[in-house]
């Protein structure tokens, strides 16, 4: 009695059967187990040796607010320096000039190959190597005055970041089809103009997710600058607990601030990613 004489019989019509929902027993079980574990953990912390009122009180004291401001300023400036250096090193690494190429490779080797905390200490103690810094005949000053905690931290973090960012940027540049560069050449663009107008904007799409990752790493890496007296949030929290011995409470205060800053970064990154995804996906897809 089929309406399509050419179709094989024996396949019943499913249109009139109701659709049954699948029960996700595994999900319910997992959720219950996690809620129970969290409740136990919460009770342990509430009953533990933590004075929560202290956490609340110190969360917004001026010294801590100064500290988190310094943390954010340092993270942004050092990351900016890292990106500028990273682009320059990546471009040098990909240039046909063998001298530029090996300088770039050496930079990455040196600054990726030694611990960041060691680099920070070296910058801060530069005066032991070069008591006087400057450009011969033009300008000079005493290294102890120039290499402040701020400048030492900026150079240490930024130059180290540049080594990592250069590899991210190199991957991004290589991800852009060579046809794009050739098309840029045929409309008369030189290497640098093509890079700026055509290659880098398209590399951004590939580069942003790992750069977001690197930036989050940078926010936390600024805490290493506490060893060279830069007054970021962990350094300031330590100064408070040296005086009042509320070690855990102040560490929690610092931890909460780091979490807050990192949480704000994620939606910012998504906005940027959407901005640079233009032209790569069809509308409505």
């Amino acid at each position, binding site marked *: 009695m089929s309406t399509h004489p050419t179709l094989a019989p024996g396949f019943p019509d499913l249109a009139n059967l109701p659709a049954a929902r699948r029960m996700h027993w595994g999900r319910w079980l997992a959720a219950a187990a996690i809620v129970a574990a969290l409740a136990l953990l919460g009770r342990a912390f509430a009953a533990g040796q933590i004075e929560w009122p202290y956490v609340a009180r110190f969360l917004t004291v001026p010294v801590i607010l100064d500290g988190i401001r310094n943390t954010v300023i340092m993270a942004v400036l050092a990351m900016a320096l890292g990106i500028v250096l990273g682009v320059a090193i990546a471009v040098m690494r990909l240039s046909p000039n063998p001298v530029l190429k090996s300088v770039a490779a050496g930079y990455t080797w040196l600054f990726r190959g030694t611990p960041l905390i060691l680099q920070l200490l070296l910058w801060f103690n530069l005066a032991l190597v070069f008591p006087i810094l400057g450009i011969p005949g033009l300008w000079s000053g005493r290294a102890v005055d120039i290499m402040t905690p701020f400048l030492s931290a900026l150079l240490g973090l930024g130059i180290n970041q540049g080594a990592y960012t250069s590899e991210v940027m190199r991957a991004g540049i290589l991800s852009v*089809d060579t*046809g*794009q560069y*050739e*098309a*840029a*050449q*045929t*409309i*008369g*663009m*030189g*290497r640098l*103009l093509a890079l700026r*107008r*055509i290659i880098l*904007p*398209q590399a951004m799409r590939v580069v942003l997710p790992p750069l977001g990752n690197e930036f989050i790493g940078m926010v936390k890496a600024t805490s290493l600058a506490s060893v060279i007296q830069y007054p970021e949030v962990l350094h300031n929290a330590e100064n408070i607990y040296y005086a009042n011995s509320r070690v855990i409470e102040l560490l929690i205060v610092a931890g909460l601030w780091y979490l807050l800053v990192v949480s704000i970064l994620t939606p910012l990154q998504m906005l940027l990613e959407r901005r*640079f995804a*233009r*032209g*790569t*996906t*069809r*509308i409505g897809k």
Partner: protein
Amino acid sequence: MTPLVAIRDVRKRFGSFEALKGVSLDVTAGQVLCLIGASGSGKTTLLRCVNQLAEIDSGGIWLDGELLGLRADNGRLHRLSEAQIAKQRLKTGMVFQRFNLFAHMTALQNITEGPVQVQRRRPAEVTEEAMDLLRRVGLADKAASYPSELSGGQQQRVAIARALAMRPKLMLFDEPTSALDPELVGEVLAVMRELASTGMTMMVVTHELGFAREVADRVVYMDAGAIVEAGTPTEVLETPREPRTQAFLSAVIRR
């Protein structure tokens, strides 16, 4: 009359492989020259040498009376700098097999990019001219579309407009329709036909023998890095003298 393009004994090797084995060719202004030949015969390489995406090993190419990529100076040849080569490239426009539109720019931005960023012309004037070009290739309504939102035929027409916006003296086409679905070939060929009718000098690598027969002033058949036969479309396509040309043509027609 001196030719717009003069190619003299050009050789080009990739490693030990010689892709061009002494090619000489003239293209006079206003002429449409179609290059045909089997895959790997050196057609793309020849076009890339003309706009200096590839560096020739010996011989010389003159465009509009100017030696490309080299400067003769008291008896010696010097390579031009990258900036000087970029300047020479402004006289040629290139259309690629795979379109190569700038993926992060709209159709309109693709067209205005060169005139504004390289030729430093006024954006308002350039935009107006770009819209005229889009109308000319039948895509005025696609000005704000990104390449990923356009069909292959539309992308290739934008690519032609992008090249024309630089006001080149010579247009190079490297198999402009061979990456297209069959039903989209016609719209691109129509744009090229219109361009030929305006007197543009064109060097076109193509497998579209119908287009060559109808539009070309000269047809050149290449094989293994050398020119085997050149002449009018009738001479080369209808009554080829060389056995290799005959074999190639019958293979293409049978396909």
